[in-house]
């Protein structure tokens, strides 16, 4: 395999990210008078610490853990939205995220203008966009409304438009925070198959999800986070089994 010789697409080394806890840094008036100081440094909360991870082309990573374990923070680091406070994070390749769809929309502009704007946010080159414009509009099924302002769209229509743009280009690295299916039933089926197509063509995928079965069939590797630290990392089957065993059955399991 040449995979082991090529540089890894994602190389995290001892990564740590902290947040300051604002509320606890504030002093009451009485404390200010008594202690004669106006400010104390707020305590740090390490959302991630000591995470070392190497991912190569062809791998797909499932990220699991309880709420607040640092899964979303790790996604932000992988997408290079957050820079680590300690350690280093190298990500080589075009990253696409499929969370917060449509947040870049300007509701006063038409659907067509928003496709252009959102595509610019997602770094879709203009030449590619011109070629794909018709396909994006067709996939969103919004042909009749595409020149109307987005403020007149329903939530479902906005989601369809955003999804169509966001999935128009094949990224090298795909980061999914909770796999999504948008729109009505018919569109959900369409979007699911498109996500699967994206996943199968991406060089590297990182998925946060609580749907263990989906992760089992999609991912080669799994990372189990616990209070911001790596609890276990390895082959998907083994890690997910262990996580499943500890987390217990899903709350709404079929009887």
């Amino acid at each position: 395999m040449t995979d082991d010789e090529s540089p890894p697409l994602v190389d995290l080394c001892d990564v740590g990210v902290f947040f300051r806890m604002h509320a606890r840094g504030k002093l009451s008036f009485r404390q200010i008078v008594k202690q004669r100081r106006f400010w104390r440094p707020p305590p740090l909360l390490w959302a991630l610490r000591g995470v070392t991870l190497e991912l190569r082309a062809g791998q797909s990573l499932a990220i699991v853990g309880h709420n607040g374990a640092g899964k979303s923070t790790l996604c932000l680091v992988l997408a290079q939205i957050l820079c680590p406070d300690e350690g280093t994070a190298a990500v080589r390749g075009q990253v696409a995220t499929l969370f917060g769809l449509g947040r870049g929309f300007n509701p006063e502009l038409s659907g067509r203008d928003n496709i252009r704007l959102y595509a610019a946010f997602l770094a879709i080159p203009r030449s590619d966009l011109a070629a794909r414009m018709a396909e994006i509009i067709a996939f969103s099924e919004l042909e009749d409304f595409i020149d109307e302002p987005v403020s007149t769209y329903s939530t479902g229509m906005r989601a369809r438009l955003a999804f169509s743009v966001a999935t128009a280009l094949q990224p090298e690295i795909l980061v999914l925070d909770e796999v999504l299916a948008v729109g009505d039933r018919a569109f959900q089926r369409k979007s699911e198959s498109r996500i699967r197509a994206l996943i199968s063509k991406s060089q590297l995928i990182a998925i946060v999800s609580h749907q263990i079965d989906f992760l089992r069939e999609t991912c080669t590797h799994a990372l189990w986070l616990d209070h911001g630290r790596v609890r276990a990392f390895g082959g998907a089957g083994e890690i997910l089994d262990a996580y499943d065993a500890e987390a217990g059955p899903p709350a709404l399991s079929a009887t």
Partner: protein
Amino acid sequence: MTSSLANLFARRDLVRELTRSEIRSDSADSSVGVLWWLVDPLLMMAIYSLLVVGILGKGTSVGAPYPLFVLCALTPWKQLTVAVGRCTRLLRAKESLIKSVPFPTIALPLSVVGSSFAYFLAAFAVLTVAAMSWPGLSHEGRLLPLMQLPFLMAFQLAAVTGLALATACFGVLVRDLSNVMTYFLRAAFYLTPALYPAERMHAELVARAGEVTGERLFWLYMANPFASLLTGYRDALLFGRFLEARFWLALALSSLVLLAFGWAVYQHYDRRVIKFL
């Protein structure tokens, strides 16, 4: 993705698209659209002219019709207040976008500066035509001093960009900044030779603080890039002369320092700011 110059260049499409969408949504926002940028300085001009000339009986010694004199200041000042005012809330308003899409966030304040500058240009073009066709002005139709305008505008753009970048960051870190900014800009407006000529301040300072101290205070006063900028616009448009070399120097230094400051602040807080959103 950091807001480095390289990333910004790589994503220049984004800055262009954002600026365009800002302009379009502004004009979609109101019925008169872009015209508002002309109407607003004109209304302010009417108010100040009424106050200064009509009620206080002043403004006759500025060497040009007072309405034009004030308009030379109000048009660029509006770009400053709009750009800075919008930047104080900008990153907070775009929080969810910043946290979900990797892009150099500096594109957001830059597009606000860009769109406000485009409107400024439109308003200023009208002002230029008015000043050139106004009868009996002391420029006597001399066109050569108009060559100064692009350079003055470039320095204006630098100063406003610097201030906008810094306020965009501080607006996240300091929650009450947008309230404070309103008063700061108002005070700064009166401390800038907008309603009166800079020479008036010079004469006043020398008369009150003595020759040496007065001169020093005056230079402190001119350290405000808008002080020499507004003087320059008036020299070019109304008086048909060239801005003094020392004021050019003050303008270049102060606006470039402001730009460097804003850039440095943004680079420093760039990704850290996200945690405060």
